């Protein structure tokens, strides 16, 4: 007997499978493009300090195409399941997807071609996607229910994203600059605040919050103490306010204080996660934890670089090092580590049907491409980081090439998961269409009373 419960409907907590697949599939393609873009712009990377152009296009290939695309899907699909409530309407999810895809494409193209009009339309479209996402998530984060330690992180993330999107729009319209008082924040100050709110505020807070869902899920463990989660949230929120305000007010002291608070938040979070792993039920951790643990090691690096930048003790390549360590180092590493496990898990949930065995996640996954991706990714991080640090563009190019190979291997893994999922569903459909011989499945999606009657509870 199996699955007397229809997992596909499941009280509307599971979105139709094509929705998360579309988000993840797009992110996988952008993942390859992000490394290839880095390879193309390698000569300009070590000395990059901001401004439109091919490097900014490469950055947004990663931030919008990979990080935001995945974050949307994760929050649309994983949070409702964890919270025990209905997923957002499919219409909202589809609208967010197409707006984000179009906005990302226009923004990336506009940055690469120095096309102001394209940049503005892309920014507005991407901001609309953010608005749709935030609106769709509001019902989930009203609170009073499950995951009391996690929902506040999501609230902070959504607020930060809204602020980052507003700042991004402000960057594109000179009329806003004219409204700013003399001596007020410059274009560069606003861009820096936008980056902090988008990367640390939205992605960072979402990562810290959802880690308290996925890491216990993967390791089969409990989050040790809710007060640690609260402490990490408070330190992280203080870091955000100080960091973003410091950028807008051009206050090095506030920026440095923000980085220090951020280091505190990171320390508490990593301690919480390692304590959780120490008390886990699953004895042998799956390979995705190589990347997840690597992301924990990398997490304080950009913050430390930030402190060094403010102190003026680092070389000219430090801004590029900061951006690379933050985006490719911490966020991308954590994300691909989590996706390795989440994709087979979600695929398994979508294969469940009344009376049919769902696909076992480990049988959907493909270890060899993941092995290639894992080591290519880590090698790429190291090579590019060193290449930027010593201002050697050829090394950056080599590292980006290795990263692209790893990203292609990851794409192969995703295709294999999808094909195995489809094959399982096809086999199950054929089996139910054929007259059954042998073991029959009890409770074909219907609720039945427990047997035997003598043991039935009153």
């Amino acid at each position, binding site marked *: 007997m199996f699955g007397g419960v229809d997992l596909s409907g*499941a009280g509307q907590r599971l979105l139709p499978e094509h929705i998360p697949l579309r988000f993840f599939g797009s992110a996988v393609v952008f993942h390859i493009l992000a490394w290839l873009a880095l390879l193309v712009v390698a000569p300009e990377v070590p000395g990059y300090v901001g401004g439109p152009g091919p490097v900014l296009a490469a950055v947004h290939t990663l931030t919008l195409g990979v990080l935001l695309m995945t974050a949307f899907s994760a929050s649309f699909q994983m949070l409702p399941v964890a919270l025990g409530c209905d997923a957002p309407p499919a219409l909202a999810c589809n609208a967010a997807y197409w707006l984000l895809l179009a906005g990302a494409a226009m923004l990336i193209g506009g940055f690469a071609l120095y096309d102001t009009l394209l940049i503005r339309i892309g920014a507005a479209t991407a901001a609309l996607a953010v608005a749709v996402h935030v609106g769709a998530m509001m019902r989930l984060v009203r609170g009073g229910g499950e*995951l009391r330690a996690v929902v506040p992180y999501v609230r902070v993330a959504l607020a930060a994203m809204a602020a980052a999107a507003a700042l991004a729009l402000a960057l594109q319209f000179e009329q806003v600059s004219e409204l700013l008082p003399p001596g007020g924040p410059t274009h560069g100050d606003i861009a820096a605040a936008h980056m902090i709110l988008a990367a640390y505020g939205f992605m960072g807070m979402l990562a810290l919050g959802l880690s308290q869902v996925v890491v216990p899920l993967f390791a089969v463990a409990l989050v040790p103490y809710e007060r640690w989660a609260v402490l990490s949230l408070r330190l992280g929120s203080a870091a955000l306010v100080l960091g973003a305000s410091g950028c807008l007010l051009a206050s090095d002291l506030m920026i440095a204080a923000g980085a220090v608070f951020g280091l505190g938040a990171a320390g508490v979070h990593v301690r919480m996660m390692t304590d959780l792993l120490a008390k886990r039920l699953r004895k042998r951790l799956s390979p995705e934890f190589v990347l997840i643990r690597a992301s924990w090691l990398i997490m304080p690096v950009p913050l430390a670089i930030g402190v060094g930048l403010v102190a003026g003790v680092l070389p000219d390549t430090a801004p590029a090092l900061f951006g690379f360590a933050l985006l490719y180092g911490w966020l991308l590493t954590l994300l691909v580590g989590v996706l390795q496990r989440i994709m087979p898990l979600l695929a398994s949930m979508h294969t469940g049907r009344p009376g049919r065995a769902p696909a076992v996640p480990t049988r959907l996954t493909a270890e060899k491409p993941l092995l290639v991706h894992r080591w290519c990714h880590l090698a790429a991080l190291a090579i590019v980081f060193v290449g930027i640090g010593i201002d050697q563009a050829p090394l950056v190019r080599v590292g980006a090439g290795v990263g692209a190979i790893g990203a292609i291997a990851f794409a192969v893994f995703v295709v294999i998961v999808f094909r195995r999922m489809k094959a399982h569903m096809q086999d199950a459909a054929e089996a139910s269409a054929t007259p059954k011989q042998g073991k029959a499945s009890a*409770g074909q999606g219907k609720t039945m009373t*427990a047997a035997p009657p003598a043991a039935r*509870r009153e």
Partner: protein
Amino acid sequence: MDVTADTRVADAVAADPDLIARLIALSPLFARLNDPEALRTLASQVTLREAASMAGVPLSDLLTAANAQSPAACQAAYRDAPDEERPNWMTAFAARPSRTLDVRPLIRDGREPFTTLMTAATAMADDEGLVVEAPFNPLPLRGMLGRKGFSSYAERLAPDHWRVYCIRGAAAPPVPSPIRSDFGAPIWREDDGVHIDVRALEAPAPMVAILALADGPDHGGRITVHHRRDPLYLYPELAERGWSWQRVDGEPREFRLVLLKD
């Protein structure tokens, strides 16, 4: 919403959040409803009739508070629950060797006393008694003890102090043996196998508690799970471990699964 004696407390509060303040005016015991956890767990299982008995408040007063717009109609429509009749076995209870268990500190700390009580009840010999000191009349727990062959009687000593006397029933079936849970989920054994109740736990604790039981030696190949909702993340883990599952009838607002080891 038309609130009756059989309306669950959580439903009545959901329809009228101001009801909590009116209930507290009747008895300070209802201040527990300000705790979202208690509202979600205990209050969702208890009717107004049971709540009145637990708090020692006339049912008509409770219904008057609940249906603030029609107090006269409530008083005419419902009768108060009769006082509990003192059973005959209480006359000889004082002669029994007995153990006293005070669960008021546990409840004050927000902890569930279920496992402690079941352990104490299981350990009772046929000629022994158990005295439980509680802040209210624990009707749901007494109901469960009754289904396991225990007899109980409760007397109210003060507005927030009840004393419950328990003995084994004359024709009690074999007492189920509780199994210790390290994750806060009550686990016990009935004729049809091991049961685990994770309704009071917050994610991911239900999944962790169920998998800990499934991975351990105590399940005997069959586990009945009492959950609040459909545990979607659990199914892939069960499939990995060679378990199958089936939804079965349960109590209102309960999602009950039977897990079988393949």
